[in-house]
Structure formats: C-alpha cells, structure tokens
C-alpha cells in the first residue's frame, strides 16, 4: 500500500478499491439487506463503525501480536465489536435491529473487515488505519445505500420507507409513489442485477476518465 494523505486514503476506499465494487468482499450482507435504503444505511453504518474500530485496535496492538496468533486476535476483536454494536442497536434502534435481523451479528463474517485488518491495519500506523477503515467502511456503506435505494425505487416504488425505525417516530415513514413496483428488484436476483449494474457503471466511468487523461 503506497503512502498518502488522509484524503487519498479515503478516496481509495470510497472509489478506487471500493470493497463492494472492486474487491467484491462482504457480498452476502450486501446482497441480502439492500431491499431498502434505510436497511442499507443501517448495516452500512454498523459496518463502518466496526471496520474503523477494528482497524484502530489491530493497528494499535500490532507490535505485541505475534504472527502465529494474529488471526484469532482479529476474530476476537471483531467479534467483540460486533457484539457491542448489536447490543447498542437493540437498545437504541430496536426496530432497525429487527429489520436487519441476523445480518448485524453476521458482520463478524464480513471478510472485508478481516481483509483490512490483515492487509492494512497490521502494517500501518493507527491514524492511517483509521483513515483506511473510514474510507473502506464509507465506500461499503454508500454502495449498500445506493443499491438499497435503487432496489426500493424499482421494486416497491417508494423511497426512505422505514425511516421511522431510525427517527423513532411514525409520523414520517418515507414516500410511496405507487402500490406495486417491479417485484424482481426486491427478490434476491434483483440484488445481483443491481450490483452488476453498479460495477458496470463504475468501470465505465473509470474507462472514460482513463481515456480523457490520455
């Protein structure tokens, strides 16, 4: 990993090496929860927090941890963080917790997090690791939200449905434009189509930029 400033590192996670679009890591939660924008946001933020904290902790302890035991320690750190996040969701956002269900505890198995601990945090300073975690986490979260928004709009012709789970009020629960949408977008195949479109879009933008530069 080349050195670079804070913003460069953010950009790497957000765009150049986006965990979902380029590394294609953590696809199971990505595909499973992105039925609405709010769900995507919830899991995205939880993942962002876990990956940033795990990067910081792994980086801070990297001098004391021997090679042989690094993986069990990553697992311990990540699992503890995820358990804490899960408890906090249950305490403060119970409705969102129910809507995301098993996918909050399953953040433990999101390989994007172990991958960043191993590839980046175990070899870089705490500051750089936090920047990397923020970038990767935000990249993942934004992708979840984009796919969630797309599937929600196409699949059930609404946007921000379930926002009451975040605000805790029933007064505003999103906009609905029609009774029915294109059902396939909500079903599992829709997740694959949406991800494929997102990857294709990113590649075409990259290619156009590359051409302009020459």
């Amino acid at each position: 990993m080349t050195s670079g400033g804070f913003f460069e590192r953010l950009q790497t996670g957000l765009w150049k090496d986006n965990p979902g679009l380029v590394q294609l890591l953590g696809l199971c939660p990505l595909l499973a929860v992105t039925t609405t924008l709010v769900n995507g946001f919830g899991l995205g933020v939880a993942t962002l927090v876990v990956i940033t904290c795990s990067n910081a902790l792994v980086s801070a302890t990297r001098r004391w941890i021997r090679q042989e035991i690094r993986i069990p320690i990553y697992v311990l750190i990540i699992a503890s963080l995820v358990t804490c996040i899960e408890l906090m969701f249950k305490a403060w956002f119970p409705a969102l917790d129910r809507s995301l269900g098993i996918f909050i505890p399953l953040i433990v198995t999101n390989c994007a997090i172990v991958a960043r601990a191993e590839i980046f945090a175990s070899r870089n300073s705490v500051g750089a690791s936090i920047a990397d975690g923020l970038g990767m986490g935000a990249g993942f979260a934004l992708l979840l939200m984009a796919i969630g928004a797309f599937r929600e709009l196409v699949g059930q012709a609404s946007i921000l449905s379930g926002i009451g789970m975040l605000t805790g009020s029933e007064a505003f629960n999103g906009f609905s434009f029609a009774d029915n949408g294109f059902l396939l977008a909500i079903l599992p195949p829709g997740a694959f189509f949406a991800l494929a479109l997102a990857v294709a879009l990113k590649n075409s933008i990259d290619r156009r930029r590359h051409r302009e530069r020459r």
Partner: protein
Amino acid sequence: MGEQTIIKTGATLAVIAAICTTLVAATYQLTRDRIVANEKALLEQSLQPALAGTAYEGNVSESRLVIQPPHDLPGNDAALIYRVYAQDKPVAALFAVTARDGFSGLIRILVGVTFDGTITGARILQHRETPGLGDKIESAKSDWIFQFDGRSMGNPEATGWAIRNDGGEFDQLTGASVTPRAVVGAIRDTLLYFDAHRDEIFAAESSEDSK
C-alpha cells in the same frame, strides 16, 4: 517456538481475550435495562392491534400462559396465550400460534378472541413468505388479514373456514394460495381450541417468566 515464547504468546492471547470480554460485558451492563424495556414495550405494542375495540386493564403480557407441546393448537412449538381481563372478569384471550404449512418457513400468527369466541383481530407476527405475493398477509401490506375481524366458529360454519379456492368463505391472495390457506387453517384451529378449552385457559396460573 521455545517454551518461553509459547507462554508469552498464550499470555498475549489471554490478555486480549480478557479486554474484549470486559468491553462486551460493559456494553451489556449499559444497554441491558433499555433492551429489556424495549422488548416489553414491543410485546405490549405488538399485542395491541389484535385486541381492537376491547376495553381491558393491566399489562396483557403479564398474564401469559405457555402451552407446551403436544397440544391441539397450530404448530408443534410452545404456544402462548395472553389472558385479558377487565374488572377481574375475563374478556378476551390472545393466542400466539404457528402455522407450519406456509409456502416458506413458519408463520407466527397472533389471534385475539373475545370471551364468547369472536375474533377481535388477527396479525402476522413473523413470516418468510414471498415478498409481493404471500407477504400481503401482513396488515401493513394489504387489508387481507382484516377479513377475520368479528368472525367466529359459526360465522361462517366449519365448512366455510377455508379459502374460496377450497370452497370456503375467505379471500385468497392473487398469486398465492398456499399462504392464505395456512393462515385460515391456523386461525380456525385456534378458535376450535378456544371453544373447547375456554374455562381451563382462564383458570390456569400465569406461567413464570423464564429466559
């Protein structure tokens, strides 16, 4: 690896494990009360809709009766019954039962029945039916589930407790008949159970809260 190194490595692992456990334990302490309160509020709130229009006193969730299988209620897991009272007289009972013959997975259904056997309301607590088709059994997605309000054994007669495709009186859903059939069947069986066991239900002691 020498003996010294092994001990050191083991100690590192133990220290980190202890720190992580402390972190989780602290978070648990901090959030425990809120989580318990949330769960109780959620339970009371989820029981409300099935009791529409019934005047009652006290917390419904405290009068819980757990019926261990085997029983004649739908489902082969423990069924829950909440007794509802007004001025110490039983006015209604709420059943949380499971339909096992849905399209995919179990359907948890809440059925409210007045003391004289009329349905006050029914709601789907949990299901994994197909989005856009079978999930219209949810009150949030369509008003299908409201057709049970005010029904009882005798309205319609036992033969009418089926979906129209099967010669009954209840609407099905476009593109989904397995799901509605399962729900209608479960509600019918619940009513039959209530009619047969009503006095036992209200006479029984509340089950202890076990977690």
